[in-house]
């Protein structure tokens, strides 16, 4: 049997819309309105406002002088309250903010580049490398804050470098699959090493320290620690933000990206670096903070749709809000501080399950 007789007859009946490629304002504003850019931009502004409010609120929330909010006049009269806010709380809040923004943006970058909604920046041996590095410093190098930070950052980058080199040498599957496999293997190596270090560690002094670092937390953050992370963090955030539209293209199949004239390999490497460097710098001072990089991009896409031109900045802002609020709870809920990593994992996992159980049937853009 043949198709073509039917083909000829049907071809004439296929309806086409009149071609109205007008260069006038009318056609233009019609096309752009289909993308809802104005609504998305307004929602981003609202989200930015929410972040400012969350930050403002966090400055006053704490357990001094009593659990709750510090009254403004207290700040004016109480020297201790002022010192507490400026020397302890402010650097801590700024770190929480930058940590949330970085993890949110880096998670989005990883999910797009690996075209996989289930990866996050700790992937590729980065998190396990940092954990091993911190434990190594605690057990063998005396565990001063500086050593732990440098060691964690170095091993995080070593994890990335190892994953990358291994992936190049693997003889199995496509590039992305090889990276994922290499990342899993390197993470497993570091986590075995971590287990060994925990076994070797002094159970009274070193083990609690390792455990505390693994749970992650922002207590003891100083301006100095914050400043040491700033160059990597600001650079990484800027690069990711500037690439916010291009990131869409980098999520496409390599051959399609090539057809679009994009050297996808090079640009992906640049963005992975822009995501991993600030992540490594921050977790080296905060310890492991789970789930932010995984869950925040999902919420951002749910609210702002897939186009990373908007969902990437949204992911940054949402990450900031999420981490700030979690840290507020970490500081105030109990007399002793709750490790931040526990709370981000708890709420992150809860929100994740909620999102998965309420898949939207209609795709509408909601304000934040």
């Amino acid at each position, binding site marked *: 049997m043949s198709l073509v007789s039917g083909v000829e007859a049907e071809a004439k009946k296929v309806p086409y819309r009149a071609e109205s490629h007008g260069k006038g304002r009318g056609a233009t504003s019609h096309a752009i309105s*289909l993308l809802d850019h104005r609504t998305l931009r307004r929602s981003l502004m609202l989200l930015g406002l929410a972040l400012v409010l969350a930050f403002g609120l966090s400055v006053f929330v704490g357990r001094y002088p009593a659990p709750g909010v510090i009254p403004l006049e207290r700040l004016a009269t109480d020297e201790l309250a002022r010192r507490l806010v400026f020397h302890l709380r402010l650097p801590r809040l700024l770190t929480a903010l930058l940590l949330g923004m970085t993890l949110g943006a880096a998670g989005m970058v990883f999910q797009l580049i690996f075209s996989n909604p289930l990866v996050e920046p700790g992937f590729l041996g980065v998190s396990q490398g940092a954990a091993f590095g911190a434990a190594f410093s605690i057990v063998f190098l005396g565990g001063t804050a500086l050593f732990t930070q440098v060691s964690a950052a170095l091993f995080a980058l070593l994890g990335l470098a190892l994953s990358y080199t291994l992936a190049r040498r693997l003889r199995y599957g496509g590039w992305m699959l090889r990276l994922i496999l290499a990342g899993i293997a390197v993470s497993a190596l570091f986590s075995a090493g971590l287990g060994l270090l925990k076994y070797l560690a002094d159970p009274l002094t070193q083990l609690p320290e390792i455990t505390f670092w693994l749970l992650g937390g922002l207590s003891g953050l100083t301006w100095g620690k914050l400043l040491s992370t700033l160059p990597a963090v600001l650079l990484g955030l800027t690069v990711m933000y500037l690439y916010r539209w291009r990131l869409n293209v980098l999520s496409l*199949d390599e051959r*399609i990206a090539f057809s679009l004239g*994009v050297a996808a390999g090079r640009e992906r490497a640049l963005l992975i670096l822009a995501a991993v460097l600030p992540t490594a710098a921050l977790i080296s001072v905060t310890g492991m903070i789970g789930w932010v990089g995984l869950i925040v991009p999902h919420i951002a896409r749910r609210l702002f749709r897939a186009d990373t031109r908007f969902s990437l900045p949204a992911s940054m802002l949402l990450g900031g809000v999420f981490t700030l609020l979690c840290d507020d709870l970490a500081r105030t809920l109990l007399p002793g501080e709750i490790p931040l990593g526990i709370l981000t994992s708890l709420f992150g996992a809860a929100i994740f399950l909620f999102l998965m159980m309420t898949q939207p049937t209609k795709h509408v853009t909601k304000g934040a």
Partner: protein
Amino acid sequence: MRTPILSFRDVSFGYHVGHPVLEGVNFEMRPGRIAAVLGPNGAGKTTLLYLALGWLTPWRGEIRFAGIRLSDLSSRTRGRHMALVPQSEYTPFDYSALEYALLGRTPHLSPLEMPSEEDVDIALHAMEQVGIAHLARNPVPTLSGGERQLLLIARALAQIATPPSPTTSEALLLLDEPTAHLDLRNKVRIIEIMRRLRDAGVSILMTNHEPDVVLAVADDVLLIEPGHPPQFGPLQEIFTAEALSRVYGIPLRLLQTDGHRHVVWT
């Protein structure tokens, strides 16, 4: 004679040393025509398409686009004149169809540039050209197979569009099995679209498994017969019952009804 839009000169290629997939490929494709690459499974049809794109580099020989060696073209220039339409594409993310078509504008933008309103216009117009402008807001994962294929073509059209004229004569579309897995109605739509693009001056190189689709739309045919140098020429000359029977290894006949030819097997 006008410069060929695409020319292969003595091109050989293989994925493993000592095992060439294609050998001695020679052809010159004139602009504004539809050429179909035909051959059995595994003969190297898609490989040929990726060689034309520049994604694969030939072992030997030379490939030129509009008279320029492929290796001498900057990737952005190449991207503005040559677009790949894959057989299928998967995205786990909920892009709207218009956002997806807009990605075709990439070679017209520098890495940090955002698409302008004009780019959005061009993308929507490309969707109009293939008749899916009404789906602009629909999420890609909710589109049917046929609609997705049309969207991939629209993205390619947005890619080669150079304002003010929506298409350029120095544009080549590379279509990998554009009608595979499509029902009759969608096949007809794709065929009709390819014809209209050709009439607008776009050159098309496509791989295809279906002799009937090739008969309906192709001007030229590149017939790949395993173990022999591929033959290239006008449809009437290359597309014969003997050649097809030999290439596919089964007896095939060409029938003529109402002025149209059909391939039948017995």
